[in-house]
């Protein structure tokens, strides 16, 4: 990356793997689990969070010297809420079906702990450009997990990816279905999201032993 200095690139790269907001920092789990039954919903959710976190981090970072620390939580909430309203209105206008699927979870981006966590931990102490990169990086790390979970749940649960029947047609018994493969409807139910995330954490921590917890 030519434009970015090594340190700036680290701001984007770290949260993707070694300091992933979901699997390591344990932030923003709620939405990660609830909307990942379809890959498309996961991708849209990731894009919304990238937008809100990137822009929100910049706004908070610009205001960091004029916010009295006692009321900073309310100021932060108002900034996020405004950005989320924009996302919600855009979704309702251009992807109405999808906004129905996401239902209240678009609104819940406001209380997504990743957003408040990054505001508190980073944007309040750093300049706008760095905060922007940090926001994008963390949102990408969040999106990565969402897309992985969404990918497996949609593939194993309904045999499709983004709505395309990649495993053949279950009714006409083509592709994999001709040799007796069945969709695992259980993958579409909410508990499986938890188990899939648990397995991702397992894989990640067995590869990187430094992340293993003591207790």
């Amino acid at each position: 990356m030519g434009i970015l200095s090594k340190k700036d690139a680290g701001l984007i790269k770290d949260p993707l793997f070694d300091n992933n907001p979901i699997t390591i920092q344990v932030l923003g789990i709620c939405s990660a689990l609830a909307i990942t039954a379809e890959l498309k919903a996961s991708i849209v959710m990731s894009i919304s969070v990238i937008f809100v976190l990137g822009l929100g981090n910049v706004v908070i970072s610009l205001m960091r010297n004029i916010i009295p620390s006692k009321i900073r939580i309310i100021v932060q909430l108002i900034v996020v809420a405004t950005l989320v309203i924009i996302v919600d209105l855009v979704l309702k206008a251009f992807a109405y079906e999808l906004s129905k699927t996401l239902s209240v979870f678009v609104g819940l981006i406001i209380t997504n702990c990743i957003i408040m966590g990054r505001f508190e931990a980073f944007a309040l102490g750093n300049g706008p450009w760095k905060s922007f990169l940090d926001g994008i990086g963390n949102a990408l790390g969040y999106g990565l997990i969402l897309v992985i979970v969404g990918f497996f749940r949609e593939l194993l649960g309904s045999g499709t990816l983004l709505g395309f029947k990649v495993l053949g047609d279950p009714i006409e018994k083509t592709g994999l279905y001709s040799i007796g493969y069945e969709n695992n409807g259980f993958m579409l139910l909410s508990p499986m999201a938890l188990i899939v995330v648990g397995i991702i954490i397992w894989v990640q921590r067995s590869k990187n032993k430094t992340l293993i917890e003591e207790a």
Partner: protein
Amino acid sequence: MEHVELFFKSIFIDNMVFATFLGMCSYLAISKKVSTSVGMGAAVIFVLTVTVPLNWLLDQYILQEGALSWLGEEYATYDLSFLSFIMFIATIATMVQLVEIIVEKFSPSLYNSLGIFLPLIAVNCAILGGSLFMQSREIPTFGLAVTYGVGSGIGWFLAILAIAAIREKIRYSAVPPALRGLGITFIITGLMAIGFMSFGGMLTGGDEKKEEPKTEEAKIEIKKEEGKEKDAKVVAQNTNINK
């Protein structure tokens, strides 16, 4: 009767943690010890009981389409529902602050046990989620909104209490090193959520009939019989929206 139904429905069937994954962050972070989890759970019940009815009033008399008609004829067509996120979160943040001040003044002992958790609650998705579900499920009366708030709070309390008890015991088990801590908690929560799904068939009557294929067996049967991916989508939506 509808109060009882909504009460049990919001505790077991639409359990905040197991059915809709709300408040997962604090659920995972504060469930290491039973004693702290009780404090957090109590605070959540308390704040939900206050904010859900309050936001119901806000929704009914200010935000909904035509809600402003009490101001006069010319306001009857206003629709301010796009403001609901910002209004709800502002109400919650102020209420949490207010509750903190009041509790500190009148019951220092309660303040000491809840104190640390109250500020955390403003950003707990269970609280905002409670209000947003209240809005999207169109709960009809003030009384039902109170019931819904209390019920969802108790559901969250039960969930965090259960996982905290399990995590205290699991320290004595030989969990694979890479799964220790967070990983195993996720998987246990998943198993508990499967258990809670069996409550899905508990209430029958009224609008529950539509949701019957919610139980896992019925779902798998449907899928085997028809094998259409349309069903899968309906199922996914049912579990997501949980209306």
